[in-house]
């Protein structure tokens, strides 16, 4: 005979505003099998949990139903409380009367009636719940970090320093990411390279970090604690063991007119190149797309059109015939730190975006973006840190900075605020004024968003001490006018149209996730938002976790992030990973599928539909021990409890623990009033 307790939470006013919680308790007290029903303001709080624990002990309960929020939110909380009171946690269920009821209804009477129905339904289910035991699975204590920017480097170092091996995968030829391109960083103006390069070297030399540059994640199998990750090592055409980084090959390469990615297109590089002098590893890569030899091979030339780099290399490290190779790594946890790209104002745009025709579609040479300005201001940049504009190398005496280009612009770009632009534009005006003392720095802005430690002071300093002219209003047009760049803006504070004859214009273009993020997200079974940023499991309480257990997020792959935030997130993911690695085994929810071998007909429909590859074949033997057939077996470590196999089994031989037919029919019957 069931002895069930029902506990109704007010959730402050979230539920009680629309649902009469007292009435629900009263109604449930009358329900067969219910021995106690109570309501309370915050059931998840300590007094609320104590109330449940006491009721379990006092009434010798066999099941508990908590009428509150979604089980995603607090099922774990209440199951833990019940377990502390000596009850098997899997006889505790939640009836969702918040998301499914109070939040979506207005009529108090009807909402209360629905809450009562919902509670009764779950009570009927719980009558059929059986005690289950958590599954324990082994954990591979090695982490994969995807992306070698500041977030990825930090996460890798923190995990490795915590004593575990890390595989760091970077798709470019060097780690360092966007931070390596920056000149100085806000709000302290310390040199980006000076604080970053030691970390890059540390990551490279760390005995527990295995670095794969010029590599990408190809395939991810498995589950938390037991991932199997295939990594594509793109053909570098340079033998990493032989190369000593002397740079002779780069000097010998005759194709020297290729836009440098590192200098954001402001300088040229050869086809075989090290992205920048401080690259880690300090080893070139051959850009096969632009290489004369490979162009010739693609055209089908009988003889190679070039071979200068190979001729020059004393180490014999150049390999024109190498192909992409694949390595598989066994991994327990994954940190995604793929970072960002900048919105491009050009005419060609991905679906849903438009370029900025009114700003010349990026065709005016002295209209550049924020990263290009960083390169111009950087001592390692194409001008050696001298402030010279791209078109004619002249020193710009008037520079206009335009904020929110592509950001907060649902029509042409993204609706969100890119967050970092207010700060880096303030920094740009300072860097500019420090280099060109008699220059004008004019900023067109909508708002100055400078929330952060020392941030507002920093942006005020740009105005008050360095003399940046801030004009509140968006810019309508930018066009080339002789050797000037005309900027048509408006000052909404002084109510006048403002036309600036600029020498250079810097557009603070929006922060977007990296191209290819969608494919990576699918490989990892991680969801992403409409803009392509990866979704965290909970915006407040689980900000670096994803809905896929064992996959964590650091830096700008999740939303626009500045350096301090990226580093903080990286540390947080490391804490999560180290926590996971702190035990040899991992507890798993026992809601997995189970095959009845006596009735299984061995059709393996389940195997075809299982998204996790959890179905295995088991031999069936006759009396003499000869194999006479096969049946399906569900690997409980792999099964995620989705129930797809249950739906397709023609002989009804699979059941999902916690969601058996008995339980589901009991719910339906309760709801239908049968």
């Amino acid at each position, binding site marked *: 005979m069931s002895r069930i307790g029902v506990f109704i939470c007010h959730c402050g006013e979230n539920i009680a505003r629309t649902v009469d919680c007292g009435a629900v308790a009263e109604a449930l007290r009358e329900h067969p099998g219910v021995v106690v029903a109570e309501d309370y303001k915050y059931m998840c709080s300590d007094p609320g949990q104590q109330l449940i624990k006491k009721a379990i002990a006092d009434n010798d309960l066999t099941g508990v139903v908590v009428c509150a929020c979604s089980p995603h939110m607090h099922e774990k909380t209440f199951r833990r409380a019940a377990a502390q009171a000596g009850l098997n946690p899997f006889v505790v269920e939640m009836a969702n009367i918040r998301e499914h009821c109070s939040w979506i209804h207005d009529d108090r009477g009807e909402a209360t009636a629905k809450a009562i129905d919902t509670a009764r339904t779950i009570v009927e289910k719980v009558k059929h719940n059986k005690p289950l035991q958590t599954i324990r699975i082994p954990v591979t204590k090695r982490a994969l970090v995807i992306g070698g920017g500041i977030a990825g480097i930090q996460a890798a170092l923190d995990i490795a320093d915590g004593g575990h091996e890390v595989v760091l995968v970077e798709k470019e030829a060097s780690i360092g990411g966007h931070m390596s391109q920056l000149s100085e960083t806000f709000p302290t103006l310390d040199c980006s390279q000076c604080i970053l390069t030691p970390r890059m070297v540390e990551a490279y030399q760390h005995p527990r970090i295995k670095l794969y540059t010029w590599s990408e994640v190809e395939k991810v199998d498995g589950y938390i604690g037991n991932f199997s990750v295939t990594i594509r090592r793109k053909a570098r055409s340079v033998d990493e063991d032989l190369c000593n980084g002397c740079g002779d090959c780069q000097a010998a390469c005759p194709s020297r007119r290729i836009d440098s990615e590192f200098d954001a297109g402001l300088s040229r590089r050869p086809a075989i190149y090290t992205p920048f002098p401080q690259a880690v590893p300090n080893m070139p890569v051959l850009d096969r797309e632009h290489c004369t030899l490979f162009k010739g091979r693609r055209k089908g030339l009988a003889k190679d059109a070039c071979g200068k780099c190979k001729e020059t290399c004393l180490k014999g490290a150049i390999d024109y015939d190498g192909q992409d190779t694949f390595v598989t790594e066994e991994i327990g946890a994954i940190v995604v730190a793929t970072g960002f790209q900048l919105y491009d104002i050009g*005419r060609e745009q991905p679906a849903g975006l438009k370029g900025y025709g009114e700003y010349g579609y990026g065709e005016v040479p002295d209209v550049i973006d924020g990263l290009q300005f960083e390169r111009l201001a950087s001592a390692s940049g194409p001008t050696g840190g001298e402030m010279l504009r791209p078109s004619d190398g002249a020193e710009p005496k008037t520079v206009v900075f335009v904020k929110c280009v592509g950001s907060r612009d649902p029509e042409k770009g993204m609706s969100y605020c890119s967050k970092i632009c207010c700060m880096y534009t303030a920094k740009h005006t300072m860097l500019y004024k420090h280099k060109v003392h008699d220059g004008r720095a004019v900023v067109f802005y909508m708002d100055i968003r400078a929330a952060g430690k020392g941030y507002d002071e920093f942006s005020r300093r740009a105005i008050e001490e360095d003399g940046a002219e801030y004009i509140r209003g968006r810019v309508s047009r930018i066009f*080339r006018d*002789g050797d000037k760049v005309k900027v048509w803006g408006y000052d909404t504070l002084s109510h006048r149209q403002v036309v600036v004859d600029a020498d250079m214009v810097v557009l603070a273009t929006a922060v977007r996730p990296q191209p290819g993020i969608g494919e990576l997200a699918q490989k990892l079974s991680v969801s992403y938002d409409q803009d392509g940023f990866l979704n965290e499991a909970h915006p407040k309480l689980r900000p670096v976790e994803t809905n896929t257990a064992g996959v964590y997020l650091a830096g700008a792959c999740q939303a626009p992030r500045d350096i301090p935030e990226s580093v903080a997130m990286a540390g947080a993911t490391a804490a999560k990973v180290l926590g996971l690695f702190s035990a040899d085994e991992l507890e798993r929810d026992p809601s997995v599928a189970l095959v009845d071998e006596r009735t299984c007909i061995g059709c393996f429909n389940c195997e075809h539909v299982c998204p996790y590859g959890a179905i295995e074949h088991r031999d069936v033997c006759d009396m003499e021990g000869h194999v006479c057939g096969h049946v399906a077996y569900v690997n409980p470590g792999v099964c995620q409890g989705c129930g797809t196999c249950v739906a397709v089994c023609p002989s009804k031989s699979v059941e999902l623990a916690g969601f058996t037919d008995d339980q589901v029919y009991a719910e339906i019957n309760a709801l239908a009033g049968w």
Partner: protein
Amino acid sequence: MTLAYYPGCSMHGTSREYEESLLAVAAALELGLTEIADWSCCGASSAHAADHLLGVALPARNLALAEAQGADEVLAPCAACYNRLSGAVHAVAEEPGMAAKVPEVLGRAFANSVRVLSIVELLQGLAPVIEERVAARLEPNPLEHLNIAAYWGCLLVRPAAITGFDDAERPTGMDDVISACSANPVSWNMAVECCGGAFSVSRTSSVLRLSRAIIEDARHCGADAILAACPLCHANLDFRQSAMSLRGEPPMPVLYITQLVGLALGLPMAALGFERHFVDTQPLFARLAREAEKAAAAAAERDAAKAARAAAKAGAS
């Protein structure tokens, strides 16, 4: 496919040369335009400012007439008419209640089945034909020396939901037509900025300010002339030009797009209405003709020298 023709009021008045050149080009290209019988004014810039429904109903009457005539497409060469007609199609299709309200107000059936075509779309589609005809002409071609700035104004590109056949900020269709005519499109900045439009009469000072900026930028960017596809723009840039203080620069001729195509097709200037312009186009065309002759002479000289060298070589061997 039947192409109806909606001239609009200006074509019978201040922009007569636009219609003359359009009809001459249409005849030369065998377009078969059928004028909408008993068409009425589209309401232009005044109706929509007074009453939204009137701004839809006035152009819709003409679309209904075109439908009744069995047309699938209506050519509206005047940019203002094009915008109003196209806007009516859009409003009736998109705005709730309009599809029922408009026939009621018109007192006639209206299925909103006609597509409105701008002159640029029409000529852009014919660019290969024009190019072919230009290539077939033998005499020295003065247009090859013409640098011309395509002026779109507002009504052919905005609002994009109504126009939408080209990029609203950096459209290219008129440049295609210029290239097909063997002339050189100029890259400039004022292609889609407003000339002052309908304020020509009621607030001339604003028109002078705005149109002057357009002419100055065209000159600054190396244009010999401006190409227009709108009677209103043409009036502001051509008729009002003498009132602009243009700092002693020579006047800037303003051509209709159909006049340029007519010239490219070899039609006589008299048939294209150039004499109706306020800014005299003769000095420009005289200069272009001289340049063409000079270039032809230079080419002939080069050919002769080449032939002589070839002959000498043949003789030597």
